[in-house]
């Protein structure tokens, strides 16, 4: 059986996260299955900093690295991949130019192309739906999230990093209706993100939400739980995970 993944962390703000290279090495040693760097920042200086971080991390972390946030074009992606990222994630740039996914998949392979999406529940509860928000969750687009995800996968996205706008930051569990709807919709892996406050939440996203992987930031970042604890908890619940 496929080992499900407990993803390391997202670095939502590099300035506050301490030394990202040290953090990454720490999570690697703790047994993270993958590391995701998000919200790099949109300025050229921020991107240069990130390239440097990725290069350093790739020399000491031997699990997959995904980098995203602020990548606008093929050149931005190429720089990150050459620096040592295994995958790049795009969000706003892909909404503005869906061709970017097709182009990226053709050049780098679809396994490199992660669609990151912030999905917010629509007001009308009868029509169970979610709307795509861009620009770090600040800007509504009027686009139906499920339709967009389907299109993005057709274009070349090889993985979905799915963040619930509603659940993110509340630490009261993932939006598992959303996770399940997306996981059943597409045939590529779905990473659940946003809302983890307890280890049970991770379990729920993988069971109820049928996600292929879970991403958590704050519960690991503030050392409430170690990655090892999370994995042992999931293993005891019957979820296949990699224990070192």
């Amino acid at each position, binding site marked *: 059986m496929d080992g499900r993944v407990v993803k390391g962390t997202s670095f939502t703000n590099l300035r506050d996260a301490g030394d990202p290279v040290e953090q990454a090495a720490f999570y690697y040693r703790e047994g993270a299955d993958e590391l995701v760097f998000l919200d790099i920042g949109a300025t050229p200086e921020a991107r240069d900093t990130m390239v440097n971080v990725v290069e350093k991390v790739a020399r000491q972390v031997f699990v997959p690295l995904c980098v995203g946030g602020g990548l606008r074009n093929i050149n931005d992606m190429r720089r990150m991949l050459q620096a040592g990222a295994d995958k790049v994630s795009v969000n706003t740039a892909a909404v503005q130019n869906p061709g970017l996914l097709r182009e990226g998949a053709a050049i780098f392979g679809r*396994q490199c192309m992660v669609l990151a999406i912030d999905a917010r529940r629509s007001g009308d509860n009868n029509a169970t739906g979610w709307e795509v928000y861009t620009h770090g969750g600040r800007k509504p687009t009027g686009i139906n999230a499920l339709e967009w995800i389907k299109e993005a996968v057709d274009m070349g996205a090889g993985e979905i990093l799915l963040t619930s706008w509603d659940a993110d930051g509340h630490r009261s569990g993932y939006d598992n209706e959303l996770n399940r709807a997306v996981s059943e919709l597409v045939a590529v892996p779905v990473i659940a993100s946003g809302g983890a406050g307890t280890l049970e939440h991770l379990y729920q996203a993988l069971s109820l939400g049928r996600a292929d992987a879970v991403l958590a930031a704050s519960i690991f970042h503030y050392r409430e739980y170690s990655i090892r604890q999370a994995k042992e908890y999931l293993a005891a619940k019957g979820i296949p995970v990699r224990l070192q």
Partner: protein
Amino acid sequence: MVSIYRIAASNDGERTSLPPLFLTAMNRKSKTIAVINYGAGNLGSVANALAKLGYMPLITSSVPEVLNAHAVFLPGVGAGGDTMQSLEASGMTAAVLKLVELQRPLFTICVGLQVLLSSTEEDGEHKCLGIIPGKVRKLPQGLKIPHMGWNQVRQTINHPVFNGIPDNTYFYFVHSYYANPSDSSSVAGVTEYGIEFCSMLIKGNLFATQFHPEKSGEAGLKMYSNFLKYALS
């Protein structure tokens, strides 16, 4: 674009990292590890893993340099047909065949394993190197494809390359196609994903993994380290 690293491992397995000029004079005593650069693949990750182990691989697109190396890595990411084209265009098809003929230690990864077979059905039928008889087929429908994530490798033979790596250890996979050798004589490991497929091959001094040891944490590093100890001894 690619930085060139120079050598490192000495005969007795002691690791040294010396500046390039000095090493030129040392070549006869030390051993060269080449990572083939054929314009594709994640060679940086493989080189990083080897550097972490204390070796300094030579990343090269030169056929003579590859043929002169004591151990060679062929990285891979992407489609089988494209990879064959890139190998052909860079002259590496003949080089890889020659390495096998010479029984030179060779480690090929992911699509680098797939190209060893007779042919692949990825993007239409493409002829491959034919070193291992058999075909490369698409993973069955029903599970998520690509098969992307950690999965277990059941060791089907005993070999020093598995030293210190327990049976059924998790390794990192990213692929949509799998190798289906026509006989099991070179199969060294298998993995289950919808079906049971060959995830590792060993034939003499030729080693190949469908998974990415360079992205498989400490177990992957251990496998590279075992291979190099075996290859350079």
